[in-house]
């Protein structure tokens, strides 16, 4: 059970961390100042949540590594984040589509975890859930605004969705680790998460006048197993450069 828990904590922490890192790439490039502040603040929330999960993982792994070490010294194959969050930002429509699909899933996952039999998990999740409630509200509003906006924004959304939709297969399919943790009362029911996610996406896409693609059913890679797309390695190279080049640097 401890091994399952460690794996699952890494999945949660790594996904939040990578999504946060991707958002930070917008720093200095966002379409408006208000938007930039919002993207950075969402990113900051996620990096903070990642730290909470990775600190817990580090304690359970108990081999002397701390959360920073897990974040900055692990290679791509040891990362357990969702494939969705490592995808490049693309234009603003791709960024918001990724954010919304992730937020809608994240909200449901944290909701289940906030009732975990593991008190520490329940506490971290309850805190994160308050933050993610705002993230989801904001990204939902953007999907509606872009989808039901101008001809240009609608076309951009139509182009964005197929670019990332295939990676949502991981949001609606669980593996044995998750099944066992659910049976132990540590995480919510992954099947319920999937249903609630699908219904939220259907609702928001409908009010955004966007078609919902057929459910993603299979993809040849799995972030949960450490099998990533080519994009994660490049992201880590940038994110980990400083702590790897100057291992004892402080500031």
């Amino acid at each position: 059970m401890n091994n399952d828990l460690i794996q699952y904590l890494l999945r949660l922490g790594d996904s939040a961390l990578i999504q946060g890192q991707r958002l930070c790439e917008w720093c200095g490039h966002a379409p408006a100042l208000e938007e930039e502040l919002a993207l950075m603040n969402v990113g900051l929330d996620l990096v903070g949540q990642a730290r909470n999960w990775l600190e817990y993982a580090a304690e359970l792994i108990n081999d002397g590594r701390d959360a920073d070490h897990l974040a900055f010294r692990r290679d791509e194959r040891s990362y357990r984040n969702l494939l969705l969050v490592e995808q490049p930002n693309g234009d603003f429509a791709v960024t918001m589509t990724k954010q919304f699909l992730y937020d809608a899933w994240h909200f449901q996952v944290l909701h289940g975890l906030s009732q975990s039999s593991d008190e520490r998990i329940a506490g971290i999740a309850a805190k994160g859930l308050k933050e993610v409630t705002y993230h989801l509200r904001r990204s939902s509003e953007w999907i509606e605004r872009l989808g039901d906006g101008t001809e240009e924004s609608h076309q951009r959304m139509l182009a964005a969705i197929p670019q990332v939709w295939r990676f949502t297969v991981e949001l609606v399919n669980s593996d044995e680790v998750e099944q066992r943790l659910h049976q132990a009362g540590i995480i919510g029911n992954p099947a319920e998460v999937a249903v609630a996610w699908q219904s939220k996406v259907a609702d928001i896409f409908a009010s955004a006048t966007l078609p919902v693609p057929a459910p993603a059913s299979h993809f040849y890679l799995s972030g949960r197993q450490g099998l990533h797309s080519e994009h994660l390695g490049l992201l880590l190279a940038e994110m980990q450069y400083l702590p790897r080049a100057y291992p004892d640097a402080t500031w």
Partner: protein
Amino acid sequence: MRPGELIGSDRGARAAQPGDLRQAWAVLEQVMDPEVPVVSVVDLGIVRDLDWQAGHLHVVVTPTYSGCPATEVIEDDIRQALEQAGFAAPKLERKLTPAWTTDWITDSGRERLRAYGIAPPEGSSSKRSLLGESPLVCCPQCGSAHTELLSQFGSTACKALYRCCDCREPFDYFKCI
């Protein structure tokens, strides 16, 4: 002393060394939030509990947001202020549960936020206000209720950006969480 007992006005009253604890609370009331330097860490409800453990002051701190970059600075400021006031090597504990809520901001804290130009959180942090329609937010400059939301996120994660439709001033709103 248990969490929750401190929220009322009788802070420290039931402790073993009430004089010292009361002094510690007084010290912490002078430690300001680094990002909103008019409200103290006590007014914000970040300091949850104080007691003595093995001869050292034990301070329970609950961060506002998971990724609040001020968390470490706040903890350093608390430690420094207490040590300067004669509390040797205070022990700080970071506690996530129950999660921090804007309901914990004191009335005087709300008033100071408003005077500083930040609209304090409106209503309680019930799920309804988190998910529901925007609350009625009054302009901290002119008091007008005729305001509009510009962005869900303002200068920090804990604030949203509003604009007053009467005096036209943009302002931060400390949002409910």
